């Protein structure tokens, strides 16, 4: 899905209402509303380019709800320290750096209100017992043991639904699922009504999925809720095969903001790497790059030591021409140097293979 917000049509008055400036990332084309002073800072999501002022397409309406931040930047430090604990870690990847550069970012979800007018079909199951037996043949005689087995008798049910469903979440970003997978889901029950002060100094990422494109996701969410309600209404222990066929005559969209932090570090190749963390749980997502240079340095140190051993073995060997017993010592030193030569390859190879794995991971 293309990012609709890159097709700039007009400056929304909503940006001013939120007290923010519309900016965009020239690299990833994401659009944000940021406080004064954030213009020119790296994009919080891709971290590859600086945010520059631009017009954005957005709804004028203010958000309806927000899920508040549950953790401060400082609270996240232990998790970030754990995140940064990589062998031959890039020097810039430290918990302190990540905390210092972290900016709070709200990301959007559509909230859909709709009336469901339709019908449903389901099967309900009633428990009953049947008498059965276990038969045992031993020593040529049969013994029977009576057992009761639980079974379910299924009956069809049909009916009509006419219910209002408010604030059903639907994705407002093309990367919605990927981001939830990366930093984890949110407990929407913690959402509170929006007031401007709740935005604080946080940046706001703008939707790139327009409402009409978000409808299939919203419809699936509503259908799921209808199914849950049908199960509750039927009030029978076993319900299966609930299918709903409905119309939604009056659909209304508002939006909700979800909290996260965005930070970045520079890897050994000079590339800025983004790191995102969940605003409630602190779950961290990002590529943890090792420093191949650091690996090479360590490799050089071990290699030098191995070379030293080999040279010493050569010298002792020369002396051994005169003092024959020293030839044996020279041989031992020479043999000892070989594993160190092999070990010298490990640091750069380890850093390189770690980076390969990180780059390949989603």
């Amino acid at each position, binding site marked *: 899905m293309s990012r609709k917000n890159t097709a700039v049509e007009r400056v929304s008055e909503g940006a001013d209402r939120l007290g923010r400036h519309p900016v965009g990332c020239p690299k990833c084309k994401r659009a944000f509303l940021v406080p004064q002073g954030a213009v020119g800072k790296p994009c919080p999501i891709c971290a590859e380019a600086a945010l520059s002022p631009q017009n954005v397409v957005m709804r004028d309406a203010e958000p309806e709800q927000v899920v508040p931040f549950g953790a401060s930047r400082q609270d996240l430090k232990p998790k970030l320290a754990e995140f940064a604990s990589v062998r031959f870690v890039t020097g810039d990847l430290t918990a302190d750096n990540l905390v210092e550069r972290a900016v709070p970012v709200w990301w959007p979800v559509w909230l859909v209100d709709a009336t469901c*007018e339709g019908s449903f079909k389901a099967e309900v199951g009633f428990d009953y017992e049947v008498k*059965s037996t276990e038969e045992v*043949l031993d020593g040529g005689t049969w013994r029977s043991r009576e057992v009761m087995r639980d079974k379910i008798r299924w009956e069809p049910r049909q009916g009509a639904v*006419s*219910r209002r469903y408010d604030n059903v979440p639907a994705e407002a970003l093309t990367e919605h699922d990927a981001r939830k997978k990366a930093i984890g889901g949110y407990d929407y029950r913690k959402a509170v009504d929006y007031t401007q002060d709740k935005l604080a100094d946080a940046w706001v990422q703008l939707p790139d999925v327009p409402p009409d494109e978000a409808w299939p996701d919203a419809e699936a969410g509503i259908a799921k809720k209808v199914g849950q*309600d049908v199960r509750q*209404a039927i009030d029978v222990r076993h319900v299966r095969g609930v299918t709903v066929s409905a119309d939604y005559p009056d659909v209304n969209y508002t939006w909700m903001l979800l909290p996260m932090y965005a930070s970045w570090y520079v890897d050994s190749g000079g590339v800025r790497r983004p790191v995102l963390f969940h605003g409630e749980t602190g779950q961290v997502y990002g590529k943890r790059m090792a420093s191949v240079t650091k690996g090479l340095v360590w490799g050089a140190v071990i290699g030098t030591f191995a070379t030293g051993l080999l040279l010493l073995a050569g010298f002792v060997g020369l002396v051994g021409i005169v003092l024959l017993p020293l030839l044996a010592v020279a041989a031992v030193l020479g043999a000892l140097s070989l594993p160190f030569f092999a070990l010298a390859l490990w640091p750069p190879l380890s850093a390189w293979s770690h980076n390969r794995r990180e780059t390949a991971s989603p």
Partner: protein
Amino acid sequence: MKTYNPPPGWSEVPSRLPGIAIYAPPPQKDDVPDGPVSTKCKNCGSSMAFDPVRQVVACGACGTEQEKVKAVGALAGAEGNEFTLEALRRGAKGWGVERKTLHCGQCGSDLVVEPGALATSCPFCASNQVELVAGDKDAVRPGYVLPFKLKSADLEKNVKGWLDKGWMHPGSLKQVARIDKFVGVYLPYWIFDARTRASYECEVGTDRQVTRRDSDGRTHTETVTDWEWKKGNIDRAWTGVKIPGTTKLSQVLLGRTHEKFDTGGCVPYDAGVLAGFQAQSYDLALPEAWEKGRASIRELAKGACEQHAKGSRGDHVRNLTMNASMDDEVWRYVMMPVYVSAYKFDNRTWQVMVNGQTGEINGQKPVVWWRIYALIALMLSPAVCSGVLGIPLTFFAVGVPLLVIALVLLVFAIVGSVYLWKSATAAEAA
């Protein structure tokens, strides 16, 4: 709320949430009518009867036919009943047709007969001692009926031929035996299906031939069995295990008769199919019948385990232990068509049963026992004579071979005599 039209007959049931209306189908009603159902012709008012040849319920007077009954195809796939506590406890639902029960004071049979069709004699014992008792209202209603395919009129010739057959029966049987009438009776049967999941352990013996040389240097070939322990699991479904629901009739004759029933011809219970015939209610209740059915099924499972253990190479099985868990047990109460009659010969009553679907005849026939004894004596006589001759001749060279011949003849005579005795006993068995 938009107008919602539930399927016809469905009614609204309570819902725990506002805005959700729930509809349920009507509860399964037993299609047993509250009162008697008339089998009278709607056209002319005459009695209607099931025509076995055309397989329709038809009026004998004006020829009006009801819709042709449709066979279920395979009874195993047709709807059955589970062993719920309710099913086991449940009483009868009545017959759905106005019928009366005749109780025979001599043999104890209960016959449900149509009003006005009062039998003059009991078809099972040819007794006239019948009395009218109330029908058993607690009897479970049949689920299926296997309709008659033969008319009683078609039976006379075949039965005469059957009576005339066999040298061990009286020659006058065909002339003296008087079979007044074959009564078409639907007999009650319980038919069971079940799945058994069995795990077993046993010793399987495989025979092999071994040639040995004795101390005299002669070779003997012996069969040696090698035994080995085997374990296994078998999951198998068993269908159509038939247990007669009546204990009043000869179980031997019933057993021979019901083997040939093709239950694929069964039709869902329809009172009309019974019109023109008698029907016997069951006296072996479902729990007792299931005891018997279960015993048959577990023996089938045992046989399957033995076969499985033997595989393609085993010859014997011993020390079999098995655990079989029964599941998916289903019972069906089915009425099977049998023509029953009895005849008197030599002051005794003899039963005859004809499979109402296939026409196969099974029955008791008197045996002229002196012929059996004479034949046995005839078979034994060569052996006895050889023995009697052989004993004194043992003083001479020919004695021993004669005794050997006598022994061989005796073995043949005993085998023949036992076979003959069994056949004669079976012919009279009831």
